[in-house]
């Protein structure tokens, strides 16, 4: 429960946030804190400086572009997503956000925090990979865009490097998405989760089986083809107290079939 000593800053602008992140080696951005503060409580992480993004209004909000692209600010909370009318352009987003943890966490936790912490059991990394989201990263050298499939680099590591901020997640329009998971209990941590998207190309992204979501592109979407494609991905999942590697490999196939089935129906 008891954090190590830390310094705290609450910048009023993104530029100031970037400056603070750049100036302090041990600085970390604090979004909703629903992961970071917990790991600090365990003293597993001990940043020297927390740069609280709370006041950065430019990182909040959801906009629906004329071409149907959704731009979601990184500091948008899960609750904002769930309540948003614009997000109905890509219904799977709200549907999955509603499955994350509980009311309190959804009220404070942010989509940017979710993907930047990249806990392999998180919901959003596989979802954003499957639906072909684009991540906008801002650094001292300016802004760049990274496809979600290239954003996740390792456990707790993403393309948003030191001194950089994820500012925006852009999602193309689409209705044919699915998400299937086996959590511990009704709404606990995921043992395996799979997101599927059948908008144009057929894409699966499997979570909890590697440090980053595993993207599987499907040639065909019948059950046998899905199972074979997942099999061909040669998953090497971790074993832990909740699941053996074999069980995860098995669930990856079963849940892939289910996620695709949901996607086919359209959400």
């Amino acid at each position: 429960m008891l954090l190590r000593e830390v310094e705290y800053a609450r910048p009023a602008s993104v530029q100031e946030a970037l400056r603070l992140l750049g100036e302090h080696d041990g600085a970390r951005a604090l979004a909703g804190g629903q992961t970071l503060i917990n790991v600090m409580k365990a003293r597993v992480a001990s940043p020297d400086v927390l740069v609280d993004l709370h006041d950065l209004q430019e990182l909040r909000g959801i906009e629906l572009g004329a071409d149907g692209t959704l731009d979601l600010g990184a500091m948008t909370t899960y609750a904002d997503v769930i309540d948003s009318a614009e997000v109905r352009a890509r219904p799977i987003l709200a549907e999955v956000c509603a499955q994350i943890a509980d009311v309190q966490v959804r009220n404070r936790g942010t989509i940017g925090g979710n993907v930047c912490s990249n806990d392999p059991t998180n919901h959003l990394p596989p979802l954003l990979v499957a639906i072909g989201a684009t991540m906008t990263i801002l650094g001292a050298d300016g802004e760049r865009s990274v496809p979600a499939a290239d954003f996740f680099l390792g456990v707790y590591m993403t393309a948003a490097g030191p001194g950089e901020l994820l500012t925006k997640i852009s999602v193309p329009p689409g209705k044919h998405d699915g998400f299937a998971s086996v959590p511990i209990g009704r709404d606990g941590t995921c043992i395996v989760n799979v997101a599927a998207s059948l908008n144009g190309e057929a894409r699966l992204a499997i979570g909890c089986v590697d440090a980053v979501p595993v993207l599987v592109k499907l040639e065909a979407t019948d059950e046998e083809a899905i199972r074979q494609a997942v099999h061909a991905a040669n998953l090497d999942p971790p074993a832990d107290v909740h699941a053996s590697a074999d069980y995860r490999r098995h669930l990856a196939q079963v849940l892939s079939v289910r996620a695709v089935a949901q996607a086919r129906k359209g959400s």
Partner: protein
Amino acid sequence: MDPVSRKTITVDVNGEGFEREVDARRLLIHFIRDDLDLTGSHIGCDTGNCGACSVLVDGVLVKSCMMLAIQADGARIETVEGLAQDGELNALQQSFSDHHALQCGYCTPGMLMSATALLRQNGSPSDEEIRRGIQGNICRCTGYVNIVEAIRAASE
């Protein structure tokens, strides 16, 4: 503003103003319990799972163990101590008692705050919505049966 390790913050808790100097590392729940001596909100875990520390910050239900006190600077906080008015239990509190929705009472303050937030958003929740509304609050005594009943009754 440059990073600070300590800061004087002001908060409004249940309508009363407080000004205190806090370490940047102080969790909001410890600030409420230890520094303000409002001990109704509790701590039942160290991982943000149990919800015993749930309070409303600017009207939003949060777990105060996953927020720093320094983040609450300028905020309006509602805790269990603010529910009863002039010594009279509010409808939700009374319903918890009527339906035996508490045994040891340790999870109760957080549970009441979650129920408060739920009923403000949704005046007549279904059982499933009630269960979703308190999903972030662990109770080890009641099996939630009577808690769900109490919240439903209070909403009627």
